[in-house]
């Protein structure tokens, strides 16, 4: 009798586990499904232009040499425009440079980099949207 009782308890637990899997699965499907549809719509709206190097895509993790390569702007030109030495700053991210160089003014250095790139592109009549 005791064995039968414990067996029935095991079976009930097993059933509960499967029902929990269904519930968790449905929650994940709902959550990620909606997010995936949203991301897909965003991609469709933006359109795929692999070569476009819009300055608005500049992020805090980027370094000056990386930006120089991606936007086809000489590294020395960007450092010159920012008025900071290249030595000791080449491996630093924009976020770190921003913290060090423009304390209390978040994003100022990133804006200065964008301005420098726009200036270089205007001076050298770079075709906007051209492959980097």
């Amino acid at each position, binding site marked *: 009798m005791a064995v039968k009782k414990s067996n029935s308890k095991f079976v009930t637990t097993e059933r509960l586990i499967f029902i929990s899997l*269904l519930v*968790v*699965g449905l929650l994940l499907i709902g959550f*990620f499904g909606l*997010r995936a549809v949203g991301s897909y719509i965003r991609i469709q709206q933006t359109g795929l232009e692999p070569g476009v190097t819009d300055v608005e895509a500049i992020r805090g993790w*980027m370094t000056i040499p990386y930006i120089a390569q991606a936007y086809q702007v000489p590294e020395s030109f960007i450092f010159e425009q920012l008025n900071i030495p290249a030595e000791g700053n080449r491996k630093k991210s924009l976020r770190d440079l921003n913290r060090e160089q423009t304390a209390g003014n978040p994003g100022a250095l990133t804006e200065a980099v964008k301005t420098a790139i726009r200036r270089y592109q205007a001076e050298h009549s770079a075709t906007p949207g051209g492959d980097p």
Partner: protein
Amino acid sequence: MTDINVTDFLLTAIINYGALAFGVALVLGALGVPVPGTLAVIAVGGFVRQGVIDWPSAATFGLTGAVLGDSLSYGLGRFAGDWVERRLGQSSVWQNAQTTFNRRGGAAIYLTRWLLTPIALPINLIAGGSRYPFWRFLIYDLSGEATWIVLFGGLGYAFGSQWELINQFISDFSGLLVGIVIFAGGIYGLFRYRRHKAASARREAVAPRG
């Protein structure tokens, strides 16, 4: 450190130190350190297109790092499996789980390398713990990781400077697939449970009483 900072740190490390940083990130990711591995693969595809990293070294370091990390977590599972074996070795549930994984583990290993990546680490641990043959694990692992790097790295390459766009979609889609697999597992389990219950009821009805 927040998730955004980890991602930023990783991307800066990859553009500064190249394929080596990429390989190290994939080793850590396979060991359970919360490193956004798929994002790294997509980003590296974009960096290859921009000429920041060359593809042969990215592919070599990436594949080596991912397989090394998976092998180490397989080893952890094997080590933990010895402990579990000593305690549950006689249990029929544990023996059944081992037999099932040995029979169907290959597909699980392959698919969790590139399609159901959020559950790759548990699969590595289960493979090691259930004493799934290492050479078979390695073959499926290598194939799956190669698929991951070529497919997602290729997407990053195709999207070029806009690789960030595809990353969010892939991450959400991967979560959706995990949800579907868990849901399907629940359905399959309930189906088997009902069949098992019906068979038990039939046996009880046929068996002589007294």
